[in-house]
């Protein structure tokens, strides 16, 4: 199936899209999906080690399971605020 992964900031810039589509079979864990992200979109490989994944609006570890209904995003290091 196709998993849509939300991209922001530098990840969006590198991939050229706000939604990356990755072909995979679910459920799978975040670690497995990370490899597929790199295969699908090589420009993300250099920044992915610095990024976290979010599943259903919470930070996820490599062991977190992604189901078909899950909302998945790549979270680059944050820079909110301005002081």
């Amino acid at each position, binding site marked *: 199936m196709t998993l849509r992964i*939300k991209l*922001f*900031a*530098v990840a*969006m*810039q590198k991939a050229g899209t706000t939604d990356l589509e990755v072909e995979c079979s679910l459920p799978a864990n975040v670690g497995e999906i990370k490899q597929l992200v790199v295969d699908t979109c090589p420009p993300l490989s250099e*920044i992915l080690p*610095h990024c976290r994944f*979010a599943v259903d*609006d*919470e*930070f996820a570890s490599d062991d977190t399971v992604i189901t078909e209904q899950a*909302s998945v*995003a790549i*979270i*680059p*290091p*944050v*820079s*909110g*605020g*301005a*002081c």
Partner: protein
Amino acid sequence: MINLTRDTIDTQQVLESVQDTRAGAVVLFLGTTRSITGDRETGSLDYDCYESMAIRKLEQLEAEARRQWDVVEINIVHRLGHLLPGEASVAIAVSSPHRGTAFECGQWLIDSLKEDIPIWKKENWADGTHQWVHPGMED
């Protein structure tokens, strides 16, 4: 309370939103956009946000602050979209019975906000180049 907005932050409204007769102190912190970073000049900034997650994480932050401090009211407002130098990108207001609590809690909230809330800033430098700001990540 938590608010994400694409409009100018109304600081008077933010102050009034936390005022309460149970409070003896109100602290308002504003994060404002700098025009100079190092030796580079900023023309404008754009803030990107994963809104559903940012609201969830900010609500968790408020809940944790209320566990740690005896506060009356908290309002965290983050601006999104396009900003010019000198504008407020974030406002945090805290009211509490005594001032020490409001200062401490407000400081903790802004420090924590910069670690885990999925909001990103893009510098549109005056020389026409652009750069997403990602602490710890070399461009």
